[in-house]
């Protein structure tokens, strides 16, 4: 018998605290496998956010920094400027990146910092119990929009990838999802592209991953993936908004 699939050593042996079916576990694995395949794990440094993935560092066998809410791109800037040969990535949720951290992500992207940002967009705040996020859909009921998000007083969901893509400096900006195995393969490619660009010192890369939050969406994981397809993807279209080095064709 030959092993066809096993757990990479870049992931730690710790069981995760994530909810059953949560996409964090999948994305962690795609990141870990990408770092392993690119042979950069031993010089990688992750920056964990505040959110469900605050303990992301418990699940990877690489150097990690736990950052204040929203500040990961600034923390990553400090790390990368100090250790330019490290592969530095942030891992952030929609509150961390699109609410409190809007200044930090825009400016790290604008400076063209040679880092990779992984943005987990599930349209809700998980860790704190299901409040509205900047990416929550209009009409969606959350703990802080109990009558449904009202665009007139609460705004509409923010499409961060598109905003980042308007900046001169970013090298690679793409939005993917892991709701099917086919899309998971594309997500891993996107993550690997991003890390490859960083390895080649080609600038700032941004990978937005539309994910489920079964617990706070009030759905079974399998139903949540369907709901994502039908409701999230029309608002957050998949695609690559910037690829100045043509990494996707490489």
């Amino acid at each position: 018998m030959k092993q066809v699939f096993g757990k990479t050593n870049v992931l730690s042996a710790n069981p995760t605290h994530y909810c059953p079916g949560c996409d964090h576990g999948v994305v962690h694995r795609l990141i870990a496998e990408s770092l392993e395949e690119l042979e950069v794990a031993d010089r990688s440094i992750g920056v964990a956010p505040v959110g469900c993935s605050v303990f992301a560092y418990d699940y990877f066998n690489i150097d990690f920094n736990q950052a204040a809410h929203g500040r990961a791109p600034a923390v990553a800037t400090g790390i990368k400027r100090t250790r330019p040969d490290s592969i530095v990535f942030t891992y952030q949720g929609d509150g961390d990146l699109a609410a409190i951290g809007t200044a930090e992500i825009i400016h790290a992207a604008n400076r063209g910092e040679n880092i990779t940002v992984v943005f987990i967009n599930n349209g809700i705040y998980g860790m704190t119990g299901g409040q509205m996020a900047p990416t929550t859909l209009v009409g969606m009921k959350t703990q802080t929009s109990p009558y449904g998000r009202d665009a007139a007083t609460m705004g509409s969901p923010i499409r961060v990838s598109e905003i980042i893509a308007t900046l001169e400096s970013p090298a690679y900006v793409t939005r993917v999802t892991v709701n099917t195995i086919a899309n998971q393969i594309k997500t891993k490619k996107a993550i690997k592209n991003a890390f490859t660009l960083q390895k080649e010192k080609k600038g700032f890369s941004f990978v937005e991953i539309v994910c489920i939050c079964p617990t706070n969406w009030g759905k079974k994981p399998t139903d949540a993936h369907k709901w994502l397809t039908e409701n999230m993807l029309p608002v957050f279209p998949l695609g690559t908004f910037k690829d100045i080095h043509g990494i996707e064709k490489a």
Partner: protein
Amino acid sequence: MAKVLMKGNEALGEAAILAGCRYYFGYPITPQSELPAYLAKRLPQVDGVFVQAESEVAAINMVYGAASAGARVMTSSSSPGISLKQEGISYIAGAELPCLIVNVMRGGPGLGNINPSQSDYWQATRGGGHGDYRTLVMAPNSVQEMADFTLAAFEYADRFKNPVLMLSDGVLGQMMEPVVMPAPKDYDMDSKKWSLGYTGKDKTARNLCTSIFMGQEELEEHNWSLYQKYQVITDFFKANKDLAVEEYLCDDAEVVLVGYGIISRILKTVVEKCRKRGIKAGLVRPKVLWPFPSDVFAKLADKASKFLVVEMSYGQMVEDVKLAVEGKKPVYFFGRTGGAVPSDFEILNEVDKIVRPD
């Protein structure tokens, strides 16, 4: 080395480079913008990194990142900007990282004005940020000390794995005095084997920088170890009094004047004028504000009759003096705010009032 005439802010910048600091992250704010401007020019000349961050919040987080990766790193700001940095400073202290934060104090609260003040003493010595932590606080009073204290600050930061805060003010930052720059220090990032991105062959496990400890016992243990570290720092300065405090003519002093930073320069003149008038005045100038030299005051309270604390605020350090004196002798206060730097005449008047109350 040669004596040069330099502005306080710039002397600090040059000294940082001599200390081996190669990373600066900051944001413009009056009256300290000369410091980032100076480093924007100097750091690229020494293969260092200067980043003008998008805010003081971003800047302190860049410092947190760089410090976790082993850098000798600093930031600077003035009062309102230091307020913005408080969460970041709490993280740096919680994660036990070294760095230098310079506060060139200006008038407050709120936007205040751009004139000098000493109204951030509480912010500096009482935390400012959340949680049970301390920053080592240094208070230079001359351009020479702006330079010398900077080198010391980086050494203390590394030795104690703690953020160090340097309290300057609008006068010290802007004034020009002759200074002899200290000798340069060698600094090697990889001497910090705990730093992120360290890839030495002796690395056996990954390195982690965090300040979250979810378990009750875990966090209690962490806080206890921080507390013990602060005891070590306190004991260090008790054992090295010359580094912590300057005492001038205190041996036979009946009135002890207390002040730090630019105020201490004026108080020295006041002491001399007092002595000429037959008033036995002395001066205690804390050079380190946290840990506060309480034992010096406790001892003096046995000999001296009165204390007069002078600050460019409505009274912050005076509370620490009162605590240290433990009610043994009266502690008086004189302060000016809004940017007024009291003259020696004003202070002499105050001394007169307390020495000759009739």
